[in-house]
């Protein structure tokens, strides 16, 4: 990088253009008014704000009330404020809510709210998926919380270890609320992750290359990939647990070949990355705020991006450090100890980057900076104790003691909650047009900073004194009293008032806060160019980015090479009848495609209702409703993706293409759909891998496989079925080639041929499965055999539904030489289904012979 100028003092920065079409575009991107608009809305500001609000709502409910009651109970020895039942419910709820329903929605809210502005795009790729994500998170949280109404509050801890959480030791429905309510919310988290990944990679301002990508966007990209890779195994784990609880399978029943530890592996493969899923976006917020308030460009940008990616990868290699006490072999223990300690390297790089930026800059003492400095101090302590608990012999003392409670709260409050507060103070002006009060902000910060240390520091000591976690009382003679009292005082005297000040500040500032201009902090990134609050569409004329810090380095926001200039100006004038957004090249950020983003629709809400209905039906054991719900979801998905007539002729599109050299797809994006399908296939593949892992884990735990009394499966039918499916996997590409050369008849015949072959394979294979001599409830072998088989079956049926829909539209002439991207995506999915079929049934049928 050549010599660069110091950033200017706080000022508005370059001007964003607001052409005459501004109002028209604003109206085009707005949700409909009234209640209907609330139900069908897809506008990203509204969805993001709702997610944020929902996350804070659950934080107050589960994060705060529960912890206050727990601290009151533990304030003095042998207290009897709450019963053992209630205490167990409180800590289960506290952990569950914070880990699943608070931090995730808050960061997804930040992402959906901010990304279009930060990236300089009008919308995210799948507005309807964003709406679906919101509804599922909300409904999942409410379903989980509804357990309170029925006095069936989950009480097996947020980790729900089997066999305690299994049907024998938790027979009532409380744990089903836990599994199923969170299941819905997990679906929502994955949906939002897909939205964010494609948004960051493909929807940016022209010129915003990967090396100019604001670091918060990098953090959200890593965050979203981690969600995809971590939550999917959890969904599979939850599925197996619910099958054990509701259908009598034996996955976690040691008496029938199941394993008590399989759950712990599946849970922590999710659970450890989950900690970093929360930390990564938080550190992204920190990397955004430090440069602005130190008036200094972030030092070591590339290093910090590398650190984020490294944390993402490393976090998946150290789950077993939660299992040091289960009796793993020493070699395994050493491996996971080393992997856990290695995370100190990327964390160290981040810290040096931040400290160097602070060193070189000059502090502007505003509340966001206070919270960031608080973050640095508290998180560094949590990081140091983190290395300590990675040291196995010490961890065997600290594990499941209050030392770990202290460590974890230093990490999560210091590392995540403080950056969230910093982020709220930083971006609040952008979204409300009002500043939060600085004096209240300082009170807010100091109360929380002192409170966190007074509350959690003594827990280190009391843990080393031998106090285990999750105990509702302790006897007086152990000497734990003073430390516990200090913790309780910390919560009541500092943290509770601190949160109260925050709420008061938000409410007060909403009504009569000081007005914020476009760029009150002198920020360097694109969101500060737009008005506060921003227009519905964010940008009338898209910005052209030539720097990592456009608001500091650029004097003009819409100047660049001439062709780009004409392109962004043209997009402000055309097309005003549909919501146009731009896809750019992943690396070079040159415009690739102008496409039509989805407008408001009721179908995401219907689909979310269908999903939650599936889980409710399982909860109340009225299983015929599941069929109704699945049909609802399928109908909703078809309605959601119903092809709409492009609001203009092909000629018009081609005219724009010729003029600007950028493809126009008013029928929907080709690029986004391809990426979406790729991520959907990835999701299915991860889920399948988690099931395969479960298969091999159970296989290793059982020396005799299949168990006595069960024969090895016959191979003939399965071989024929696999062959039929393999042929269908070729035929679908024949169909694709036909449509590309305009042969409609051959195309339709090919699709129908694929469908017929697939159906034949399916019927043949599942006739074999249904006539097996053993069921899913007979030994863990039967459980994993049937579950894996039906998983593959469902994937294949999903592919056949897509093929059938495509065949229907093909007969009606929907697909042309120019528009047939959907068919290509379905062909990709079908290929994945064929591969999964081969691997799945190959394992099931050949596995028993390979011993």
């Amino acid at each position: 990088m050549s010599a660069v100028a110091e950033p200017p003092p706080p000022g508005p920065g370059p001007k964003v253009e607001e052409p005459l079409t501004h109002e028209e575009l604003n109206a085009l991107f707005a949700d409909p008014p009234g209640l209907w608009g609330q139900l069908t809305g897809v506008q990203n500001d509204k969805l993001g704000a709702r997610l944020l609000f929902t996350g804070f709502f659950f934080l107050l409910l589960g994060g705060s009330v529960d912890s206050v009651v727990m601290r009151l109970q533990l304030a003095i020895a042998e207290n009897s404020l709450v019963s053992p039942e209630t205490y167990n419910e409180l800590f289960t709820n506290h952990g569950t809510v914070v880990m699943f329903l608070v931090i995730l929605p808050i960061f997804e809210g930040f992402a959906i709210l901010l990304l279009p502005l930060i990236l300089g795009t009008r919308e995210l790729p799948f507005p309807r998926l964003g709406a679906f994500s919101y509804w599922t998170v909300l409904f999942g949280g409410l379903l989980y919380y509804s357990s309170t109404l029925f006095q069936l509050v989950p009480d097996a801890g947020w980790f729900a270890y089997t066999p305690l959480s299994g049907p024998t030791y938790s027979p009532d429905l409380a744990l089903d609320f836990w599994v199923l309510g969170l299941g819905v919310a997990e679906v929502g988290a994955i949906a939002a992750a897909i939205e964010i990944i494609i948004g960051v990679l493909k929807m940016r301002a022209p010129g915003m290359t990967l090396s100019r990508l604001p670091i918060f966007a990098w953090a959200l990209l890593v965050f979203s990939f981690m969600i995809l890779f971590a939550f999917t195994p959890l969904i599979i784990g939850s599925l197996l647990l619910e099958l054990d609880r509701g259908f009598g399978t034996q996955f976690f029943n040691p008496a029938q070949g199941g394993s008590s530890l399989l759950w712990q592996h599946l849970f922590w493969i999710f659970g450890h990355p989950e900690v970093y899923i929360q930390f990564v976006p938080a550190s992204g917020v920190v990397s955004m705020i430090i440069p602005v308030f130190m008036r200094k460009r972030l030092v070591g940008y590339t290093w910090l991006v590398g650190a984020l990616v490294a944390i993402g990868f490393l976090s998946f290699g150290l789950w077993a450090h939660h299992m040091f006490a289960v009796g793993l072999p020493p070699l395994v223990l050493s491996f996971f100890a080393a992997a856990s300690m290695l995370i100190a390297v990327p964390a160290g790089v981040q810290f040096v980057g931040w400290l160097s930026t602070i060193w070189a800059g000059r502090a502007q003492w505003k509340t966001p900076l206070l919270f960031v400095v608080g973050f640095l101090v508290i998180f560094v302590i949590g990081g140091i104790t983190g290395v300590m608990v990675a040291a196995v012999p010490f961890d065997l003392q600290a594990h499941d003691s209050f030392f770990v409670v202290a460590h974890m709260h230093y990490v999560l409050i210091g590392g995540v909650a403080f950056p969230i507060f910093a982020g709220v103070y930083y971006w609040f002006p952008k979204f409300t047009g009002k500043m939060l009060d600085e004096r209240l902000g300082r009170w807010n910060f100091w109360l929380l900073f002192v409170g966190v240390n007074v509350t959690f520091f003594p827990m280190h000591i009391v843990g080393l004194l031998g106090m285990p976690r999750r105990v509702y009382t302790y006897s007086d003679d152990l000497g734990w009293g003073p430390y516990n009292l200090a913790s309780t005082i910390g919560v009541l005297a500092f943290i509770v008032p601190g949160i109260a000040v925050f709420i008061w500040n938000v409410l007060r500032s909403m009504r009569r806060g000081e007005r914020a201009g476009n760029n009150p902090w002198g920020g360097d990134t694109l969101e500060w160019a737009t008005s506060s609050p921003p227009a519905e569409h964010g940008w009338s004329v898209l910005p052209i980015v030539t720097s990592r810090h456009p608001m500091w380095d650029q004097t003009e926001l819409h100047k660049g090479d001439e062709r780009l200039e004409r392109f962004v100006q043209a997009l402000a004038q055309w097309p005003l009848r549909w919501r146009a957004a731009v896809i750019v090249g992943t690396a070079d950020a040159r415009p690739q495609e102008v496409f039509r983003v989805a407008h408001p629709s009721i179908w995401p809400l219907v689909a979310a209702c269908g999903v939650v209905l599936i889980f409710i039906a399982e909860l109340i054991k009225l299983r015929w409703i599941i069929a109704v719900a699945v049909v609802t979801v399928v109908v909703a998905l078809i309605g959601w993706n119903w092809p709409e007539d492009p609001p203009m002729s092909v000629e018009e599109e081609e005219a724009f293409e010729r003029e600007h050299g950028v493809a126009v797809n008013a029928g929907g994006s080709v690029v986004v759909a391809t990426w979406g399908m790729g991520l959907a296939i990835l999701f299915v593949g991860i889920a399948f891998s988690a099931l395969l892992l479960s298969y091999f884990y159970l296989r290793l735990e059982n020396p005799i496989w299949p168990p006595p009394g069960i024969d090895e499966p016959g191979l003939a039918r399965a071989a024929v079925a696999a062959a039929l499916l393999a042929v269908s996997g070729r035929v679908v590409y024949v169909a694709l080639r036909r449509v590309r050369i305009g042969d409609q008849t051959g195309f339709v015949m090919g699709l129908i041929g694929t469908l017929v072959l697939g159906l034949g394979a399916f019927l043949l294979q599942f006739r074999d499965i249904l006539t097996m001599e053993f069921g899913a409830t007979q030994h863990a072998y039967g459980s994993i055999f049937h579950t894996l088989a039906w998983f593959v079956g469902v994937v294949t049926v999903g592919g056949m539904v897509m093929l059938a829909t495509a065949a229907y539209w093909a007969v009606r002439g929907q697909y042309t030489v120019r528009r047939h991207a959907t068919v290509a995506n379905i062909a990709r999915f079908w290929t994945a289904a064929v591969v999964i079929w081969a691997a799945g049934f190959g394992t099931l049928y050949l596995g028993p012979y390979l011993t």
Partner: protein
Amino acid sequence: MTLLLAQALDPEGPVAESAAGLWWLMLALGAGVFVIFAVFLGVGLFRARPGDAPEAGPQPPDRFGPWLVGGGVALPLVVIAIVFAATVHAMRDVPTRAPAGALVVEVVGHQWWWEVRYPAEGITTANEMHIPVGRSVALQLTSADVIHSFWVPALGGKLDLLPDKVNTLVLEADEPGRHLNRCAEFCGLQHTLMGMDVVAERPDAFAAWVSSRQPAAAEPAAPDALRGRDVFLGAGGCASCHSVRGTSATATTGPELTHVASRASLGAAAVPNTPDELARWVSDPHTIKRGVAMPAPEISGEQLADLLAYLGTLR
């Protein structure tokens, strides 16, 4: 300093000692890292700088590369290399197999009590464990129901009791002492009240304890105790779940009671074993430990008095 009194850091056995040594090393390194961090942060934030307004004009590119390499990569690597080496070293002090000559004790976790067996000595007891000082003890840990965890901080780290596996925890006590083993893995409603006294004593005292636990229950002499035994063994009585060697009571659902009167505590270290607490426990255990599997017996006041008299003979 109170920290020095912390149980885990006040080791009374070699396993706990090596964990404590590791802790002090890591605390020193951690404190060093924190001080370096705090100095850089404090000076960076507050040092005086010339001028108040930021400078305009060109500025050379950042020269923080060496800092990123040195502070961000090298320093953490050095620290974790030391910690990892110390970890591996300390792990070698934690045997995972029973050394020759070790005393073997089988521990079975139940919701919410501990079954303790000395196979070589022919003893089965519950919620009490005695071990000789200066000799390795190999605990064979397993569970009858959910996952529990065995933890005596002064003697060593914890290890889980799994229903489908036997884990071996090797401990040794250097000096006599009475410790509390407290379940460290959440195991349901009364996880909190799942404790057990672990008494480390001199070999002669240990031998005396073993021989006190070996004989079957003696025939009670007093008439009330004899009547109490009938209550104990009667249909639907205590013998449905408990066993007393030398009688027809052989059920294994609940704790073994042959020498219950000489144990230190009741209800898995829920309360001390005094006559008053025993009466309270037998008449309604749920007032002491809610949700425990043992029901309150439906017997008259006289029967209760007889039963308590009988239990008092089980020394």
